[in-house]
């Protein structure tokens, strides 16, 4: 398992992307993606800012960079103490210097007053358990629309059944943020495959390593870390290798690792031709499309048919 184009089917052209060595943290496995970089896009943390929450469910983001298009990461959300936290249902393209208002944002903290302001904020990506529902609700103006799904998620994790995502993201932050260290961002990495247990969970691709590095924490800690945290396995006793010397031990470790890498490859969903792309918006040569079918859903940004951003996941 070294090439991405053999895994994700057409019409996405993923030739040139390579897969690295899998890393694991509990039940979460991450396979780094390296490949063609497309610099020039505004990174989400240092360039894209939450300007204000106009009213519940209506959020303004601002691309403050002097040049470069900002690709709003799919399902980005903002947390701020004492304010109503919001997440977006879809990705978007914002030109340099522009402010964009999203009227279909969802509140992720029922009953909490106050509006987010552009200060003391940190962003997350919705947990993968909520992403299919959030994508399905894009375009619908109702700030409370994600509360039932959040309530179900909390109930499933043994937390009070409320529409408070903060119960997980903030109160479990200390353990969730450890995923940022339990999995290591690799030099030059601009994407990743994620698996929960032996099940493919998502594919994340960024235009360049700088953009992906700024997404790293939000993805590993919140988008995929929440499900992994909930399924954290109890480590068993260490089983020794049957080696009678150091050289033999080294060889056994190497072959064992190779076998485990192959095992990860076997977890990939089988390629299918049923994937459909529906264009949502465009900016110059950039196309933002929603992907459905083939056991995948999510959004991609393409340029001349080549993806520069992708966030695809398995509906859960």
């Amino acid at each position, binding site marked *: 398992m070294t090439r991405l184009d053999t895994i994700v089917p057409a019409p996405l052209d993923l030739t040139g992307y390579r897969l690295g*060595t*899998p*890393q*694991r*943290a*509990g039940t979460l496995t991450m396979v780094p993606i390296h490949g063609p970089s497309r610099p020039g896009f505004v990174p989400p943390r240092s360039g894209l800012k939450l300007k204000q929450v106009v009213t519940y469910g209506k959020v303004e983001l601002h691309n403050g960079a002097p040049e470069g298009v900002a690709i709003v990461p799919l399902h980005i959300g903002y947390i701020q103490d004492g304010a109503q936290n919001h997440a977006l249902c879809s990705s978007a393209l914002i030109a340099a210097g522009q402010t964009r208002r999203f009227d279909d944002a969802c509140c992720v903290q029922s009953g909490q007053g106050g509006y987010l302001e552009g200060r003391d904020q940190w962003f997350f990506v919705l947990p993968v358990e909520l992403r299919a529902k959030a994508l399905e609700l894009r375009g619908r103006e109702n700030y409370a629309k994600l509360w039932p799904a959040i309530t179900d998620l909390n109930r499933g994790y043994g937390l009070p059944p409320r529409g408070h995502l903060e119960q997980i993201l903030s109160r479990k932050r*200390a*353990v969730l943020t*450890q995923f*940022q*260290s*339990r*999995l*290591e*961002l*690799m*030099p030059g990495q601009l994407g990743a495959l994620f698996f929960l247990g032996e099940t493919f969970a998502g594919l994340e691709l960024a235009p360049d390593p700088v953009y992906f590095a700024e997404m790293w*924490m939000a993805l590993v800690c919140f988008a995929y870390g929440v499900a992994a945290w909930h399924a*954290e396995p109890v*480590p068993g006793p*260490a*089983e*020794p*290798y*049957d*080696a*009678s*010397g*150091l050289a*033999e*031990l*080294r060889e056994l*470790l190497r072959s064992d*690792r190779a076998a*485990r890498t192959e095992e990860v490859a076997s977890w990939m969903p089988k390629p299918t031709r049923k994937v459909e792309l529906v264009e949502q918006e465009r900016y110059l040569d950039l196309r933002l499309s929603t992907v459905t079918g083939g056991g995948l859903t999510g959004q991609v940004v393409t340029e001349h048919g080549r993806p520069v951003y992708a966030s695809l996941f398995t509906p859960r």
Partner: protein
Amino acid sequence: MDIPLVLSHFQTHTAPLTLTRSGDLTWDDAELHRTAGLSDPEGYALLALVPGVRSSQRARVLLHTLATSQAGLDERTRRTLAKVTRALLFGLPPAEAMTVLLALRRLRANHKHTTRAVLAFVLEHPDAAALIEARRPALVDCFEHALGKATARACARRIDEGDTGSDYLRSRLLRFTADPATAIERVWYLYAPGTHGATARTDPPVPLEAVRAHEPIVTPTNRGDVAATLVHLYRGGPAAELRPALARYTAEVTRGLPRLPGSVALVLDTSGSMRGYGDREWAVLSQASALRLVLAEVVEELTVIEVGGGEANPEGATDLATGLLDALDTGPDLVAIVTDGYENLLPGDLARVAATLPRAGVTVPVVLCQATFSGRDDLTLRNPAPGLPQRRFWHQDDFAELLPWMFAHCAPGRNWIRTAVLNRLEGGRP
């Protein structure tokens, strides 16, 4: 004596040594102390002075050393034991030292070295006046146990009558002290009327190690001078100014420490997580690198195997298992793995490789030193090899106990500990 086992016990077992009013002595680990003390009386006693040993364990060592006959020990060993005894007598909180002395009375221990120790405490304690005022009956009991009740009271009576140097007083009491005038004054005071409700200091008069005072809020630059200087270097600070300071601070940490006549292979985690991020960026790596600098000064032959991108460019994944195998290939006396505990390539590999070593015929000791941001880090998900001996460290002050703990696991380290403690006893280090 299994030094790593005993030292770990001394540094972690916190149950107090207690003596009830009815005279019942309680120490749940008496057998461990008895076995260790009999197998190597000097090494056992010296271990009590290693930094980080619990006060209650030091009290046990004092008790065992004073309760056990020194018959058959050579003169050098007896001199060492006497030094350790004195250090413990005045290095323990007075209440704990008195528990030991009262326990000796209960055990009817009356060796010569026991007598000398009890009298030294009663007559030469720097805070004797306040201590006698606060604990007069107990100290009288100790004094009378040391000399014998009749002799003690006879000495007291003579002193009360103005005797300052009769043959009787010299042969029975003053020969045990280097300061007869003070001893006479204190014996007189011991038998004088007391004051109800008097209190004495609770801290030791001559502490065995400095009291650690840390800032309440931990930052990357208040965890010791070496690490702080490294943080500034990593941030791109002026090397011309920082490098000489780094050498100076490292020399201060290692001053007085003996060289370890052996080889250590250091597996140093330099992955991306060691660099950290946000407010804690560089904190963990800087302390791990500080340990590397200290080891480079102290160890005769240090080999460093960097796992990840290297100290200059910490990034990438953590392959501790391969690092351990590479370290063992150098044929060291000891392997020390220094990591934040996040193993991701692949988790469990280090534990499996470590568990295989005995059957692969490898007897080289391997220890795991976990670098953390503060003393309160949750390590639940950061234990890559539960079967390995392990210690955490986060501050430069931790090195004082970390180094002996590490070296205790290898043969050359045992003599290193002895030399280091003797250096401290002789005033080489505070």
